Each structure stands twice: as C-alpha cells, then as structure tokens.
C-alpha cells in the first residue's frame, strides 16, 4: 500500500519560508493534483516528496515509512520533469532501461520491462533514436515510459505538459489519465493550469503562498470554493465577483442593483460588506439558457463584447458597473450594445465576506 502522508511539512530557504506546514493525506492509487499560481510552493512540495529538496520541518511518509532522510533512490518513486530530462547520450531504449540497469536487474527482465513500457506508450518505432531526434510529444512519452518501467510506488509529475503546444497538451493529458487507469499507482501531479487539474485529478490541492487553500474533488472546488481565490482560480472563465452590501433579504451590488440573497448563503448580518459571486454559466439570456427553472433573478443587461465558441458564446456585459461574463447556449449573433434579458440562477451563486474573502455558506 502506498499512501503518501505529509504532516506539517515546512520548507525554508534561509529566512524565506516557501512552504508553511502542509498537511496532506494521499490515498493509495489516488491521482492528486497540486495546483496554484507560480511561487505557491507546489513544485517545492513535490521535490520534497521526491527527495530532491531537504525537508526543513515536519514529516513525509511514503507507504507508512518516513522518508525525510532517505535519498531519492530509496523512496521507490519516479518523476517526470517539465523539461523531460532525458539522458541525451542514450537511445530511447537505454533511457527506458536505465533505472533497471542501475539496479543490476538481469538483462532479460530489462528487455521485457522496456518492451512492455514501450508498448503501452507506443514507442516501439523510436527505440533506437536519441532524444535529440524526437519531437516534444515523443520526448514526453519517453519520459513517462522511463517512469513506468520501474513500477514505482508513486509517480511524481512536475508540470509535464507545460512545454507542449496546446493541441499536444490536450492529447497527452488524455494519455496520462489512461496511464493512470492502467497502472493504478498513486500519482502526484503539479501544474499551474487549472484545466489540467480539473480534468486529471481525483482530488485537487489548491495552494497559495506555501499554504493549502482547499483540498477536494474538482467538482467540490468548482461548486463550493472556500474563498474568492479558489473561486477565481478554478473554472474558466473565472467566477464573476461583484462588491455588494447585505440589506435584509437581498444584496445591493455597488449601491445600484439589488439581487435576492441566494438560498445557499449562510449567516449574514445586515450591512455586511460582501462579494457576490456567480459563474458565466449562471447568467444566461432567457431562451438561451441551460435551465430555465428554479430560483432566479431576472435582469436586463447590454452586451459589450461577444466571443463565439461554437456551442456557446461568451457575452461580456456590465452589471452594477463591473464587467461580468455571461454565457449563451444555442447562440445567435449578438451585436455589441444589444440589450438582452438575462436570468441569474440564484442557487448557484456564492457570497463571500468582503474582508476575509471566505465563503459564507449555510
């Protein structure tokens, strides 16, 4: 069993603290994605798990064994780097078999394991090439192959798709997910791209400034963000946030528009300054919405800009003096300046305390 446990893990570089006492339990076979803006400590955390960075405080355990002072080679992990880090002087075959060669496994076993990995990743044609003669996507696959050859307890991925172009990235994302279904090992994956996090993860760990902000399934983070940071980081386009003040059963946005309080909102006091949040998917023109039932607030807004995406069109409009984004399904052409009758789905709206940014939920 290879669960990974981090307890109060700290990383300091001199006076600078990069990771502030992280607690995290990763279950056996789970696909966990560490995500956050650059400099949030996600890569440092991964490198501490790998043993490439010293742990300044706390404990990292892999499979119940504390590994704080073990070198990387004794942790039975493998890692895929952002720049692939293939050995340039070795062929693909040698790259794949390197770890087994170092472990002095019998030749036969190496050949078998390498061929198996090559089969899984479709590398058979490339076995005798050097990394320099491979395309970006192929290098990425070799890096993954090198990782799976050893049947490690834990896979670590450090922004593995950042160097690929958009199309290839989507393709490799699917391959990584398939790989996980096949090998069923624990995977810890670092990325700054929330789309990767959403699509790949069993569980997302969202980090900021060396702290964990929220841990949960992609849908939990999407539907119940704990604060405005999570709300704007997860989901594309980011959640619309409008300043408002609570007045009785409604919120007055920027002193102009009044919106009924969402049902889900928790305890709010009269006059409390809040941020009112809703996603583009919850603000749709009537006749072009996904759902037309349930509690809703209707409002007339004029469109300033449109971004047609095919099945839907993103509408930029202005609500209480703030630019917000709305969505239109079964789109029809909309001219800038055109006024549409929108429907705001109230039970999907969020209220955050303006000062702390924390969600206020019932």
């Amino acid at each position, binding site marked *: 069993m290879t669960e990974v446990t981090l307890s109060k893990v700290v990383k300091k570089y001199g006076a600078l603290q990069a990771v502030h006492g992280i607690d995290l339990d990763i279950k056996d076979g789970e696909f966990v994605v560490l995500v956050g803006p650059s400099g949030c400590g996600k890569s440092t955390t991964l490198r501490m798990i790998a043993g490439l960075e010293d742990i300044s405080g706390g404990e990292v355990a892999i499979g119940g064994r504390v590994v704080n002072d073990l070198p990387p080679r004794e942790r039975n*992990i493998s890692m895929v780097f*952002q720049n692939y880090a293939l050995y340039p002087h070795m062929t693909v075959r040698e790259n794949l078999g390197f770890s087994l060669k170092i472990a002095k496994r019998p030749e036969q076993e190496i050949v078998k394991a390498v061929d198996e990995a090559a089969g899984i990743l479709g590398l058979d044609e490339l076995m005798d090439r050097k990394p320099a003669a491979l395309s970006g996507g192929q290098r990425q696959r070799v890096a993954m192959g090198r990782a799976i050859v050893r049947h490690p307890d834990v896979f670590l991925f450090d922004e593995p798709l950042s*160097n690929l172009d958009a199309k290839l990235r989507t393709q490799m994302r699917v391959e990584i997910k398939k790989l996980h279904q096949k090998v069923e090992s624990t995977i810890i994956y670092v990325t700054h791209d929330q789309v990767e996090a959403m699509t790949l993860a069993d569980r997302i760990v969202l980090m900021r400034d060396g702290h964990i902000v929220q841990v949960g399934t992609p849908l939990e983070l999407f539907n119940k963000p704990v604060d405005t940071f999570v709300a704007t980081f997860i989901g594309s386009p980011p959640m619309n946030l409008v300043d408002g003040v609570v007045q009785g059963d409604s919120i007055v946005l920027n002193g102009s528009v009044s919106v009924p309080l969402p049902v889900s909102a928790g305890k709010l006091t009269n006059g409390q300054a809040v941020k009112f949040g809703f996603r583009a998917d919850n603000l749709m023109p009537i006749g072009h919405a996904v759902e037309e039932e349930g509690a809703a607030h209707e409002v007339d807004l004029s469109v300033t800009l449109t971004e047609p995406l095919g099945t839907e069109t993103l509408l930029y409009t202005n609500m209480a003096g703030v630019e917000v984004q709305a969505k239109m399904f079964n789109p029809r052409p909309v001219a800038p300046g055109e006024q549409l009758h929108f429907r705001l789905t109230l039970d999907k709206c969020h209220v955050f305390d303006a000062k702390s940014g924390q969600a206020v939920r019932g």
Partner: protein
Amino acid sequence: MDRNQSHRNRRRVLKTLHFTALFLTMMIICIPGLWIVLNSFRPTVEIMAKPPVWVPSFTLDHYRAMFAGAGEGGVPVFSYFRNSLIVSVTSTLIAILIGMSGGYAFARYRFKGKNGYFVGLMLFRAVPGVALSLPLFIVFAKVGIIDTHFGLILAYVAMNVPFTIWLTDGFFRQIPKELHEAAEIDGCTRWQAFWQVEFPVARSGVASAAIFAFLTSWNEFALASQLTRSVGSKTMPVGLLDFTAEFTINWGGMCALAVLMIVPALILTFIVQKHLIAGLTFGGVKG
C-alpha cells in the same frame, strides 16, 4: 530587374571579399607552419637564400643529422620526446581531474566565497608564466625538484587548472540539473549520476579542456627552459635550443625537430576534434 541585378552583383562582390579576407587570414596563420615544414626538408643554402626559394629541393639531411650521434650534430630526440610526453600527459591528466572536480563544484554547488575563489583563479591566469620562472626556479632549487619531471608537471598543473576549471564549469552549467536529479530518482547515487549521466554528456567539454591543457604543456617553453637542464628532463621546445651555437643557428635541424613536435599535437587534435563538436547536450531537455 535592374535592382535584382545590382543586388545580385553586390552579393557576389561581398562574397568574393569575404573569401579573400578568409584566405589572407588563413595564409597568415598557416605560412609560418608551412615554412617550418618546408625548411626542414631543404638544404641550408636554400633556407638562407634571398629571395626565398618556394619549391624546395627535397632532402632528409636535417632529419638524418638530428637522429645521428651527439658528435655529428645530433640531439637526443627520443629522450626529449619521452620527457615531453610524460610531462604533458601526466600534467594534463592531473589538471583535468582537478579541473573537472572544481568545474563541477562551481557549476553545481553553492558555497561561501564561491565568486571570490573563481575570480582568484582567473586572476592567477593573468600572471604571465615567465614572471613566475625566477621565483619558481629558486623554490624548486631549494626543494630539490629542479630539473625533474615532477617539478615541471607541478608547474604545468598549476598553470592549467584554472583554465580547465573555467572551461568545464561552463560545460557543466549547460547541463540542466534535472539530468542528475532524474538519474538519482532512477536509482543512482550522486557519484553514479555524475559518471553515468553528467560526465558522458559533458564529455566534449572535458575533451576540449584536455586538448587545451595538453597543448599548453606540450608547447610551453619559457618555464621549461628555466626549470629543466639535462637530457633527462628537457622537453622538446627546450631541445630546440640545442641547435643554437654561439655564432650560428642550425635552422634546418631546428625546423626538423619542430616538425616532430607539431605532428603528435596535430594527430591528437584531429582525434579529439570529433568530440569537440558540442550540441550533444541539447535534445535531452526542452522541446
């Protein structure tokens, strides 16, 4: 059409100029060497002839004389060659070992006073070897290592280490640190990661550092002329002086010995040349 034509003409003129300049430069570099080779094969009369004779009448007299006994104008070529080889090879090996370790340390580790050390090493390079010859002579004489292989090797190692450190540091810096990290995750110790991955990747850099160190030792004259006296330790450049007498210089013999000196250096350079081609590093990383 005119503009096309004039553009084409201009390109042609530039190209011609370019080649002429290259040719002149190469001539300046090559003719002295060529002249040495030619002189070694022509009779002394032709060497001194004015105007110079371009097509020599071929003779092996100088070589014959050089290899002849001591009384007939010969010099102990084999001893000099052996001395040169021992001193150059040993000092190069030591300098490369030290230089590679140093270069790796400068490229990979952080330590106190790192920049200071580095600048210090480079400053040491700035001191001309000749300036050190007298102090070295006195110290070596006192210690008793004057006129020995060991003394000369020591001096050459000291001369070459800063340069090899500087060169290998540059090469190791080009190798992304992820390579040794990947190797360590793949089961290597730091030591294994170096020899299995980083060293082979930096091989071209180490090879070029080695060839430079070797040539420096092989060709060095100023220090060697001070620190060696006898046949047992004199290197080939110093041996050239054997052809000077009080009033005459045996140019032909000197050139013949010089050719013997140049040939091994040339061969070595050609052998190592293919390793000098960098670009091996790139490809394993980035996309």
